[in-house]
């Protein structure tokens, strides 16, 4: 579904990604693990269009999306849940959810939107009880759920998740990973970037290890879990 070849990206002349190539097959969960500063978030930003690319190609359903603006890429069916729960803090929870379907509103599918909001509330019941609340006053875990809910409103075929467990209580992390599994079962392809390597490898089918902007290892997630080097560096021995 998504094929990235020889991707290079840089911030102010400092290369962050060096010839990165990955594949995300339809219907699978692919995870990218690696240390902080390895370039994981940059890779996601490159896909979603928030980050300019120096060289390389990103093919989504065989179409090159390099150079497209973020707001157009969403329209193609790629939604990103950004790092650090970037919800619209001053707007209400329901407004946040509605804005997730911004492109549908433009096409005037009111009925479908109501239906989707309903479905979101089934997945995250806590959001329904908070729907009138200003989003900035939610707890960290609730904000992360809201960020995922907002991304789901766009009916993505490919969901990009950037560090969904960062700064979240272990109990809530489990809940969020359950949702990821459930979404995948209902047909959404997922590309997950995680610091929490153990959780990421458990939920993924296939995994890449990113170090200093380069892919240094890849394989089936189960195999990587048993790989001694991965164990030592990312799973704490």
């Amino acid at each position, binding site marked *: 579904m998504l094929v990235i070849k020889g991707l290079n990206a840089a911030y102010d002349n400092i290369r962050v990604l060096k010839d990165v190539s990955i594949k995300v097959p339809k219907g699978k969960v692919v995870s990218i693990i690696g240390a*902080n*500063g390895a370039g994981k978030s940059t890779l996601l930003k490159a896909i979603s269009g928030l980050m300019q690319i120096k060289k390389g190609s990103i093919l989504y359903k065989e179409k090159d999306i390099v150079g497209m603006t973020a707001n157009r890429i969403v329209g193609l069916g790629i939604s990103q849940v950004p790092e650090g729960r970037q919800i619209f803090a001053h707007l209400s929870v329901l407004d946040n959810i509605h804005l997730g379907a911004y492109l549908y509103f433009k096409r005037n599918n009111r009925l479908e939107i109501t239906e989707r909001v309903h479905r979101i509330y089934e997945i995250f019941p806590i959001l329904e009880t908070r729907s009138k609340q200003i989003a900035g006053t939610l707890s960290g875990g609730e904000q992360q759920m809201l960020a995922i809910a907002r991304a789901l409103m766009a009916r993505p075929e490919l969901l990009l998740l950037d560090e969904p467990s*960062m*700064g979240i*209580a*272990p*109990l809530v992390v489990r809940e969020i990973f359950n949702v990821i599994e459930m979404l995948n079962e209902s047909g959404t392809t997922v590309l997950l970037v995680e610091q929490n390597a153990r959780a990421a490898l458990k939920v993924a089918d296939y995994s890449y290890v990113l170090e200093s902007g380069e892919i240094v290892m890849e394989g089936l997630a189960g195999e990587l879990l048993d790989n001694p080097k991965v164990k030592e*560096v990312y*799973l*704490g021995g």
Partner: protein
Amino acid sequence: MNFIGEDNILEVNRVNMAFGGLMALSHLSFKVKRGMIKAVIGPNGAGKTTLFNIITGSFPPTEGSIIFKGMPVEHLKAHKIAHRGISRTFQTVELFDNMTVLENVMLGCHTRIRTSFLASGLRLPMARKKEAQIREKAMKILKFIGLAEKFKDPADSLPLGEQKILEIGRALAGDPDLICLDEPAAGLNETETYVASSLIRAINAKGITVLLVEHDMKVIMNISDEIVVLNYGQKIAEGSPDQIQNNARVIEAYLGSG
């Protein structure tokens, strides 16, 4: 000042904190013994960072008191509290990104060595002597935290792991009696986390009391002597790591079973 016989360096007494109609902390009380590492854990939104902000003087509590070294400090502004001997780091790194690594730590010395406006402007001998002192002290701290070689680099050019270490170094420079660390391991990988925990132990070995907020349970269980668990602004448990790990309320509210 010496408080011989002062067992508790910090006492949090029935602290309430309301934001608008929302109670971020309610009737929170606990004590921190001199020389220990105490951890505060709890889900996001439990009020941990609010607690830190109150202790370090970002804002006063709605009700209740904070006793530090036997004196109430809850009404003091942040810089006054720093002078009394409480230092801190931030959840999202708050380094001075317009300064070098060394200058960041040099600023940390501000509570202990300072020159007046006039003395610095006229560059009096006294000011020069103090500046040299500050520099020497800052270099010593950089050696202690292992960043001496990067002293000239701009602070924001360091990788996150080192930025977090540098922030701890900056907090150390003011010779605090109590250091509050807000999620020192957040965003770090296993190796970096290991470095950070060793540093926290080393700081504690120097006799500095540590109060920390953290999510990484491995870090918490490894290094802390005592743990306080918060949930929705209330204390639901307090005790040694073993006691906490087996506490039914904590498992239900925070850790989850299995």
